[in-house]
C-alpha cells in the first residue's frame, strides 16, 4: 500500500505555476471582443410590493444597450432545491415583490460599468413597503406576514430524471408560518430513553450567519452565438454541469445548446453552486443583443446578495447513564434561510446527516425547520450544517460532562461509532478512524495536563487558558444531479495521457489529485498527464465540487478510466511480450513489463502502435464512470431523512487551546489540532492545506465572523467590518492524518475539505468554557459575550 509512485506524495499542484505567475484566467479576467458590462438594480427594502418600474430615463442614457425587468422574463423559476415538495421559488428578477434587501429588480447592459451604474440610478421603482419578519421566532408566529404566500405548483425540474416520482402534498399537519423546509426522523423510544437515564440536560445554542468570503467576486460572462444558436458561458462556479442543467431549464433551451467554458475559480466554499440572477441576466441580455455581456459583482453585493451560512437556533436534550452512556437524544433545529428557500430543506436534513454518524444513540429524535425571513439567502457553505450541529452537540456534551464531573473525552469515547457500524439509514462505515482521531487530538493538545476542569486552583491573572475538543463527520458525495462523474483518458503516441474531467478545481487541488490518480493507475508520471477540465462540451459529466464528492466519486471515475486505458495497453503487449495473460504484466514509467522477467518490456508507444495497426486503428481511449453513491439510485428523502446518504464519511477530531483576556473579553486561538480520517491522503500537501483552511475558516466563525443584520439591512458588507482571520491570527496548527482505508474510494481516499471545519467551533467553545469557567452559548464568541458571561 505504501509502494505508490505518485499518489500519497506531497507533489506541487499542477496549476501552481500558472497561478503564481498571474497567468491563470479566472472568470473576472475573461475579456471578449465587443463585450458589454452588466449591472443589477437591487431592492433597498426587505419586503415590498413592486407597483411600477419606469426605465424611460435610463434607456435614453447614451451607452445603454439593454434594460431588463421581471416583466420581460415572466414567471421563470429555478432554485438549488427543486422538488415536488419544495418547488423552485426564485426568479431571475422580481416580478411583483421583493423579499430581501438586495433582491434583484432590474438589469442593465451598457458599454461600460460606469454607464451601467449610472443607468441603474435612473431607473425609478415604486414600492409599497410590506411588514417584514427578521427572526425565525417572528416568522413562525401564527399571525406573521407571509413572505411566500403564493401556492406553488407541485412540479419539479427533476421529474424527467425519474427521481421525483410523484407529487406529494405539503404536510398539512405542520402548521408553521413561513416554513420552507422540514425534516424529521426518530428511532428507538426517546421518552423511555430519558426515563431510563440517570441524568438529563437540555441546552439551546445560537449561531449567526457567516459569509464565504471567496477572494474572487462572483462573475459571469455570457456570449450567445446566433449563427450556431449556442449560449457560451464562463462562470465562477463549483459545478458546471449543474449550472448548465439549471440554465437549460430556465431558458427552456436544449442542454446541448449551452456550453460552459473553463475558468479558474477564485474560491467557492459552497457559495458558487446555486444559479444566480446575474448569471441568468448576463445570458438573457447576450441572447437579446447578440453580444457578450459580463457581470461582475461588487464585494458588497457578494456579501449581501449571493449566499450566506444559515443562522440557526439549536436545542439539544440528552439523557445519559452514570457511566457516560448516552441513552437518548432529542435535537431541534431551526434554520433561517432568508428571503428565498436557498438550501433550507437540505441544511436541516444535513444537520441530522452530520449528527448521527458520530455517536451511537439508541433512542434518537431529530426535527429541523427551515424558515423564511426577509434577509439575504442562505445556501451551502463549507460543511453545510455540520459546523452548527457539531458545535451544538459537542458543547452540550461538554456541559453534561462538567455537570457530572466527568471527562468529556471519556463520554465521547464511550459513545462514538466505529468501523463496520451500520447507521440507522443503512449507510455502513466501511472506514472510520474516529476513535484514533479523538485519542490523537486529545494527546496532542496535552488534554490531561492542560484541562482546567479538574484543577483545584483557579488561574491567576488577566489571561486565562483552556482546552476543548469536538468531533465531526462529512459525506463524500451523494446522489444529486448529475448523480455521477465520468472521465476519459486519451493516450498519446509518446505514452503520455490527457485526462478529460468535468471537475472544477476551486482551489482544493482536484486537478492535481485527479491527475495523480490517473498517473498512479496507468503507470506514468504526474508530468506525463495533460489536463482538459471544466468545460461542458469537452469533458464528460461530473458531479461537481460540492458535498465533497470529488475525491471519491470523480476520483473513482478517473481511476476506472485509467484502468480501462491500461487494460487496452496490456492487451496489446500480451502478444508482443509472449505472455498468456495481462495479469502477468505491470506498468511503470510509460513501459509495460513482464512481472517475473522485467528485462522483457515494451514502451507505451509500441503498445499504442500495435493497437493502431492490429486493433482496427484503436488509438486507446479509456473511459470510466462512478455514481454519486454506488449502492442506490435514489437521492435521500430530505423530509423523512430516509434512504442512503453517502458512500463514505470523512471524520475528524479537533482540539483547541485558547487564551481569554478577561479584561477585554477577547478570545485568542493559541493552538489548533486536527486529527482527521480522509481514508488515504492522495496528496499530503494538498490535504494539509484543506485542513489548515478549514481550521482557519472555522476559527473565524467561532470567534469573530458574523453577518450583522438589523431589520434585514446588512451592516458589515466589507472585509474591514466582517472580520475573517488574517495572518496575525494564525495559531500553532497541528494536523495529523489517521490513515484508514475507504474501500469505495480511489486508493482508499474519501472526503477531507469540508468536515475538517466543523469540529473546531465546538473545540473553541469548550476551550473558552474551560478557560473562564462559564459558557457562551452563541457564536461567534465576541468580547461582549465573554464579558457578559463573566458578569453573570
Amino acid at each position, binding site marked *: 500500500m505504501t509502494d505508490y509512485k505518485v499518489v500519497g506524495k506531497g507533489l506541487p499542484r499542477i496549476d501552481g505555476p500558472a497561478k503564481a505567475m498571474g497567468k491563470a484566467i479566472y472568470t473576472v479576467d475573461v475579456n471578449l471582443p465587443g463585450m458589454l458590462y452588466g449591472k443589477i438594480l437591487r431592492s433597498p427594502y426587505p419586503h415590498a410590493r413592486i407597483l411600477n418600474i419606469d426605465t424611460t430615463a435610463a434607456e435614453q442614457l447614451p451607452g445603454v444597450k439593454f434594460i431588463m425587468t421581471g416583466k420581460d422574463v415572466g414567471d421563470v423559476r429555478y432554485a438549488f432545491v427543486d422538488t415536488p415538495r419544495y418547488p423552485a421559488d426564485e426568479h431571475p428578477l422580481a416580478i411583483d415583490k421583493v423579499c430581501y434587501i438586495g433582491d434583484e429588480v432590474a438589469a442593465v447592459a451598457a458599454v461600460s460599468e460606469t454607464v451601467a451604474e449610472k443607468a441603474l440610478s435612473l431607473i425609478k421603482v415604486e414600492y409599497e413597503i410590506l411588514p417584514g419578519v427578521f427572526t425565525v421566532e417572528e416568522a413562525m408566529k401564527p399571525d406573521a406576514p407571509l413572505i411566500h404566500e403564493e401556492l406553488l405548483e407541485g412540479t419539479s425540474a427533476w421529474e424527467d430524471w425519474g427521481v421525483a416520482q410523484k407529487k406529494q402534498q405539503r404536510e398539512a399537519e405542520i402548521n408553521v408560518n413561513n416554513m420552507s423546509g422540514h425534516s424529521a426522523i426518530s428511532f428507538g423510544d426517546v421518552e423511555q430513553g430519558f426515563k431510563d437515564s440517570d441524568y438529563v440536560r437540555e441546552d439551546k445554542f445560537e449561531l449567526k450567519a457567516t459569509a464565504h468570503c471567496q*477572494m*474572487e467576486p462572483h462573475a459571469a460572462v455570457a456570449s450567445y452565438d446566433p449563427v450556431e444558436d449556442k449560449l457560451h458561458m464562463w462562470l465562477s462556479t463549483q459545478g458546471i454541469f449543474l449550472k448548465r442543467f439549471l440554465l437549460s431549464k430556465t431558458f427552456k433551451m436544449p442542454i446541448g445548446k449551452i456550453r460552459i467554458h473553463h475558468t*479558474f475559480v477564485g474560491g467557492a466554499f459552497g457559495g458558487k453552486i446555486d444559479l444566480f440572477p446575474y448569471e441568468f441576466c448576463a445570458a438573457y441580455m447576450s441572447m437579446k443583443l447578440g453580444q457578450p455581456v459580463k457581470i461582475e459583482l461588487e464585494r458588497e453585493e457578494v456579501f449581501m446578495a449571493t449566499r450566506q451560512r444559515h443562522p440557526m437556533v439549536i436545542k439539544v436534550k440528552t439523557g445519559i447513564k452514570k457511566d457516560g452512556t448516552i441513552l437518548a437524544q432529542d435535537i431541534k433545529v431551526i434554520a433561517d434561510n432568508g428571503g428565498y428557500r436557498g438550501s433550507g430543506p437540505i441544511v436541516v436534513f444535513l444537520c441530522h446527516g452530520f449528527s448521527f454518524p458520530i455517536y451511537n444513540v439508541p433512542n434518537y429524535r431529530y426535527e429541523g425547520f427551515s424558515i423564511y425571513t426577509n434577509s439575504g439567502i442562505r445556501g451551502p457553505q463549507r460543511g453545510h450544517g455540520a459546523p452548527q450541529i457539531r458545535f451544538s452537540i459537542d458543547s452540550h456534551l461538554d456541559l453534561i460532562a462538567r455537570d457530572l464531573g466527568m471527562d468529556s473525552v471519556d463520554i465521547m469515547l464511550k459513545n462514538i461509532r466505529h468501523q463496520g457500524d451500520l447507521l440507522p439509514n443503512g449507510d455502513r462505515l466501511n472506514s472510520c478512524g474516529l476513535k484514533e482521531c479523538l485519542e490523537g487530538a486529545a494527546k496532542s493538545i496535552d488534554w490531561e495536563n492542560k484541562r482546567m476542569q479538574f484543577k483545584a486552583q483557579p488561574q491567576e491573572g488577566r489571561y486565562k487558558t483552556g482546552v476543548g475538543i469536538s468531533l465531526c463527520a462529512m459525506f463524500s458525495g451523494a446522489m444529486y444531479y448529475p448523480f455521477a462523474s465520468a472521465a476519459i483518458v486519451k493516450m498519446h503516441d509518446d505514452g503520455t495521457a490527457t485526462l478529460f474531467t468535468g471537475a472544477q478545481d476551486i482551489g482544493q487541488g482536484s486537478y492535481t489529485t485527479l491527475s495523480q490518480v490517473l498517473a498512479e493507475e496507468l503507470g506514468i508520471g504526474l508530468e506525463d498527464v495533460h489536463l482538459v477540465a471544466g468545460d461542458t462540451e469537452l469533458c464528460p459529466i461530473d458531479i461537481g465540487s460540492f458535498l465533497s464528492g470529488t475525491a471519491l466519486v470523480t476520483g473513482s471515475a478517473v481511476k476506472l478510466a485509467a484502468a480501462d486505458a491500461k487494460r487496452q495497453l496490456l492487451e496489446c503487449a500480451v502478444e508482443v511480450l509472449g505472455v498468456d495473460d495481462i495479469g502477468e504484466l505491470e506498468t511503470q514509467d510509460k513501459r509495460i513489463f513482464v512481472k517475473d522477467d522485467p528485462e522483457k518490456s515494451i514502451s507505451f508507444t509500441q503498445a499504442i502502435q500495435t493497437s493502431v495497426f492490429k486493433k482496427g486503428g484503436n488509438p486507446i481511449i479509456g473511459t470510466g464512470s462512478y455514481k454519486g453513491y454506488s449502492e442506490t439510485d435514489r437521492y435521500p428523502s430530505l423530509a423523512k431523512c430516509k434512504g442512503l446518504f453517502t458512500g463514505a464519511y470523512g471524520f475528524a477530531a479537533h482540539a483547541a487551546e485558547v487564551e481569554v483576556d478577561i479584561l477585554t473579553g477577547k478570545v485568542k486561538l493559541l493552538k489548533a489540532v486536527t486529527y482527521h480520517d480522509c481514508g488515504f491522503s492522495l496528496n499530503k500537501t*494538498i490535504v494539509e492545506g484543506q485542513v489548515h483552511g478549514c481550521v*482557519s475558516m472555522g476559527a473565524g466563525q467561532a470567534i469573530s465572523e458574523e453577518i450583522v443584520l438589523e431589520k434585514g439591512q446588512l451592516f458589515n458588507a466589507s472585509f474591514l467590518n466582517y472580520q475573517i482571520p488574517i*495572518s496575525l491570527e494564525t495559531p500553532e496548527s497541528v494536523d495529523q492524518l489517521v490513515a484508514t482505508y475507504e474501500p469505495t474510494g480511489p486508493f482508499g481516499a474519501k472526503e477531507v475539505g469540508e468536515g475538517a471545519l466543523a469540529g473546531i467551533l465546538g473545540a473553541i467553545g469548550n476551550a473558552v468554557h474551560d478557560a473562564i469557567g462559564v459558557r457562551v452559548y452563541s457564536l461567534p464568541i465576541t468580547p461582549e459575550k465573554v464579558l457578559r458571561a463573566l458578569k453573570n
Partner: protein
Amino acid sequence: MEKTINLTVNGETRSIAVDVNQTLLEVLREDLGLTGTKKGCNQGECGACTVLMDGKPVSSCLVLAVKADGKTVMTIEGVAKDGSLHPIQETFNQKGAIQCGFCTPGMILTTKNLLDKNPNPSLGEIKEAISGNICRCTGYVQIIEAITSLAKEKNARGGV
C-alpha cells in the same frame, strides 16, 4: 477627462491616456491586459491587487492612475524572469501556499518586498508583513512556512 501618463511597468515604459478617475488597478487590468493583478474588494481591504510601485507594495485599487505618472510598477507578470519561476513563486508552489490562487499575486509581491528589505524576517515579521493580504483558502499556515523557508534559503545563499 483624460490625461496621458508615463508608466514603467515590468521594465517597459508606456505612455497611456487614462481617465482622471481611473485607478492604477483598472489601467493595469483593462488597458494593459495585465489581469494577474486581481480585484478582490476595490476598497483597499483585501490586498489582492497589491503591486510594487517604486519598490513599495500598494493596493493598486486605491492609487489613481494619474498618481502613478512617472512611477515604476512591478506586477506579478514581471516577477518570473525568462519564463522560469522566481524562487518565491517556486517555493509557494512547493509548500502548498497556493490554493485558489486569487490572493497569490498580491501575496507574492508583498513577500518579495519583505524579503528584499529584510532577508531574515522573524515569524512575527512575516505574519505582520502579509497581514494586509487576505487569504481564505490556506489559513496562512503554508504561506508562512513558504516564506520562512525562503528566508532560510536566502540566508544560506547570502541573498537572491
